[in-house]
């Protein structure tokens, strides 16, 4: 039986075309400039196309891409092998590949490029001295005008997540309906784990490819599931593993206090200047507690500040009790909680599903009917547009400043309201973009199974914390790296069963994928209990490849040495397989993780295993800055650390042991001249000058600057070598004018 892969076809065509176009670009660049990054990038593109094509069953494409990869690899080993003829040959191969992909797009079988293949093989043989290896291609069906009976007859017990998610379209009950983790309902944007693996996620084709190389009849898989009782550790039951993980990591919170209705009466102080904002804040707090059943006045009225006598009535269904309600509202300024009373559940139209005993399932079903799928481009568009709205609002505020004094208040009120609405919209857009990691981790079990089968390893894959959410943009980027790390663990990390038994380990290897939140970061750990990595071998490999001087290698710590595996071309794997081991993947993994603002760490102990730790930001890194001018230079201070700004005459300030003191509130703050602190030349200032008051490690400090330029929201870039060696800088950004600006880390600046 073969597997129907046609739903990945669109993805394959777009991705393969992209890779091939990039390959040609790189070739041209390489010939022109001879840069080594182009060779690595070419290799990655060829490798990706080979992988995708072989998993989609396009043999002619896979074989041709494989030859190209071999040849690029030979060039990578020795750049001098690249001559004009070779570039011509590679370019025409890339063109031929593109033509094959286009043929596939037209639902035709890709043509065999026999002549080209012979030329490529001949070149590989003359360069490397041996004939190229054969290419493995999955037996899958893609090009079919219509679904045949075997797709329809496939029982829904097939644990492949994407297939399972599709199953509701079939008549039989889908497995994901019964094994849904309770955490899934906290994901309104996409309540079915893995359900969008079919097309929204980039790289789904490549993954599914790895998964599909050794297709097995679904019946025998189902048999496996039944035969092995261990829940949560069961590898072949992909969804079960994910569900078990989610269950295990979910606190018993689901079974906490029953929902209860409360009538809450609040009053906003009559002296309050911004009743609309307070009311909105109250509303926001309460909605986090449970379901708002009734709100008077209505939300629109509240936001507009139209609140008769300041009284607000709320009916709330929540499990936190009256103490919970009180504590949620405790620190909202100018709001008084008049009363919190238990409300009698109105005999109102209770949804029929609420009577069902399986409440988790019922609410999940109800949730399902209230959500829609949204294309990711649309989400991106929303975010961009909201960003533009924020800028436009800021612009309006600026324009208002030139109006005569008496005309301003109304405009300012309007702008203020607009600002709150836009800000709120921004929050909502951001939360709509948050997607549980299960979207990508659900694909891992199946991939692990296929990898393990081919390597004749036995693997238990455990996934925990997959319900944790990340920005969609980061998640999309992460799919391939995660799969690659899994491959690494299974391919290189885990030993063969005999070897494990000899090392007094269980014959079954174990790979743990653990996701957790730590403050504003999400930490993903992928850990195996295999043979571990050898820092000395990695160092030697890097030295042999000419990437590192022997003295530099000697100085590296073990941890730094493990990261050498992320350099292109460094791999200590003895056998080069078509899964991994060519040292291509790890550098891509590191690049992707860093490009989304995260970091990668590798820990390993010989004989005990290896752990990859990915620390990721929750969302794309956006920071609010106060821009200040010192001399001719502009610097950014993180708004989060800024307490205020004031003007004073530096000459008249009192001093203590040479340090000027700025009166602030009831105290005196030490003054630091930012120009001297940064070593920036600036003319001596007389008279009034601005001071920025900031939170330091040991209390507030005042920084003397030349000019305040205003606030700006920017995307933070990490500092690359050697700038990261300087204390006191936390990042860099490029302003709208194109000017790079450093962001200061004031506490470190003061202590260093």
């Amino acid at each position, binding site marked *: 039986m073969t597997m129907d892969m046609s739903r990945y076809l669109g993805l394959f065509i777009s991705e393969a075309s992209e890779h091939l176009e990039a390959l040609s670009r790189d070739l041209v660049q390489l010939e022109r400039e001879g*840069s080594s990054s182009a060779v690595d990038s070419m290799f990655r593109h060829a490798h990706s196309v080979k992988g995708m094509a072989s998993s989609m069953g396009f043999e002619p494409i896979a074989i041709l891409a494989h030859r190209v990869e071999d040849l690029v690899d030979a060039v990578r080993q020795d750049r001098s092998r690249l001559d004009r003829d070779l570039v011509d040959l590679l370019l025409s191969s890339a063109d031929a590949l593109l033509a094959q992909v286009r043929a596939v797009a037209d639902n035709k079988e890709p043509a065999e490029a026999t002549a080209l293949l012979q030329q490529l093989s001949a070149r590989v043989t003359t360069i490397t001295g041996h004939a190229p290896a054969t290419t493995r291609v999955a037996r899958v069906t893609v090009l079919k005008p219509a679904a045949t009976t075997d797709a329809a007859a496939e029982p829904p017990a097939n644990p492949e997540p994407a297939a399972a998610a599709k199953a509701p379209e079939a008549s039989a009950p889908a497995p994901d309906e019964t094994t849904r983790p309770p955490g899934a309902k906290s994901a309104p944007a996409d309540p079915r784990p893995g359900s969008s693996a079919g097309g929204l996620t980039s790289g789904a084709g490549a993954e599914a490819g790895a998964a599909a190389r050794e297709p097995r009849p679904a019946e025998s898989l189902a048999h496996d599931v039944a035969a092995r009782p261990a829940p949560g550790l069961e590898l072949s039951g992909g969804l079960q593993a994910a569900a078990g993980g989610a269950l295990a990591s979910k606190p018993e919170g689901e079974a906490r206090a029953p929902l209860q209705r409360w009538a809450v009466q609040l009053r906003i102080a009559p002296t309050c200047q911004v009743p609309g904002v307070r009311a909105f804040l109250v509303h926001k707090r309460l909605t986090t507690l449970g379901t708002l059943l009734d709100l008077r006045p209505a939300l629109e009225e509240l936001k507009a500040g139209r609140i008769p006598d300041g009284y607000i009535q709320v009916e709330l269904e929540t499990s936190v009790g009256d103490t919970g309600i009180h504590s949620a509202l405790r620190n909202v300024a100018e709001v008084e909680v008049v009363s919190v009373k238990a409300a009698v559940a109105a005999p109102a139209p209770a949804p029929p599903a609420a009577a069902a005993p399986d409440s988790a399932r019922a609410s999940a079903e109800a949730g399902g009917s209230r959500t829609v799928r949204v294309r990711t481009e649309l989400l991106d568009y929303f975010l961009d547009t909201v960003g533009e709205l924020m800028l436009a609002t800021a612009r309006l505020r600026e324009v208002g400043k030139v109006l005569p004094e008496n005309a301003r208040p109304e405009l300012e009120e309007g702008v203020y309201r607009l600002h709150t609405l836009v800000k709120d919209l921004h929050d909502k857009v951001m939360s709509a973009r948050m997607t549980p990691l299960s979207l990508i981790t659900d694909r891992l079990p199946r991939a692990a199974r296929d990898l393990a089968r081919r390597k004749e390893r036995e693997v238990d894959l455990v996934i925990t914390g997959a319900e944790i959410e990340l920005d969609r943009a980061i998640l999309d980027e992460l799919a391939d790296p995660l799969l690659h790390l899994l491959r690494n663990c299974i391919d290189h990390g885990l030993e063969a069963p005999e070897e494990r038994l000899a090392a007094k380990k269980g014959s079954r290897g174990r790979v743990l994928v653990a996701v957790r939140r730590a403050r504003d970061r999400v930490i993903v750990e992928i850990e195996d209990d295999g043979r571990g990595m050898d820092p000395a071998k990695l160092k030697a490999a890097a030295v042999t490849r000419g990437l590192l001087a022997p003295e530099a290698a000697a100085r590296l710590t073990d941890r730094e040495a493990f990261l050498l595996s992320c350099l292109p071309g460094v791999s200590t794997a003895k056998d080069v397989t078509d899964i991994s081991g060519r040292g291509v993947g790890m550098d891509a993994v590191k690049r992707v993780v860093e490009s989304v603002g995260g970091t990668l760490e590798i820990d390993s102990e010989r004989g005990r295993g290896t752990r990859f730790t990915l620390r990721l930001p929750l969302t794309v890194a956006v920071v609010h800055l106060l821009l200040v001018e010192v001399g001719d230079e502009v610097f950014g201070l993180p708004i989060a650390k800024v307490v205020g700004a004031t003007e004073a005459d530096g000459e008249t300030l009192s001093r203590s042991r040479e340090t000027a003191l700025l009166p602030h509130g009831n105290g005196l703050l030490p003054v630091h001249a930012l120009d001297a602190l*940064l070593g*920036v030349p600036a003319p001596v200032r007389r008279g009034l000058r601005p001071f920025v008051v900031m939170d330091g490690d040991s209390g507030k400090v005042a920084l003397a600057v030349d000019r305040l330029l205003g606030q700006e929201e920017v995307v933070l870039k990490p500092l690359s*070598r*050697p700038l990261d060696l*300087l204390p006191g800088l936390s990042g860099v950004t*490029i302003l709208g004018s194109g000017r790079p*600006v450093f962001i200061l880390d004031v506490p470190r600046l003061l202590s260093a």
Partner: protein
Amino acid sequence: MRHVIFRVEKERYGLPLSAVREVVVPPARFTLVPRAPPAITGVMNLRGRVVTVVELRQLLNLPEGPTPPARVVLLDRGRRDLGLLVTDVDGIEAVERISTAPGRVTPAVRGVARLGGLGVTVLEPEGLDAAVVALFTPSK
């Protein structure tokens, strides 16, 4: 092997072509890097990347000269975005037979070679990298 040949004042230097990403004209102004060693000219925005630019003259401890630097040679060092500020770039030439350079031994200098009857100092990209990092390391 093909090398990019450039000058600091009248002295000629070479870097393997494979180590050079591109050559650009320096921007009207650099953004100053606070607390950086004096050899660091500043950072520049190269199509959205922030590139650190080092004055080669200072990196190699050469005396000051009258000609303003007119080119930035961008090194291809993986993620490290590093540029060398030089007087001018002459072109790409094949450099063979590199012999030991006179003077103090430094990892940034690989040796000297003859090119068109004149000498050219061949630089070592790895060593240049290390020299820049060393500037930032407090012990030096």
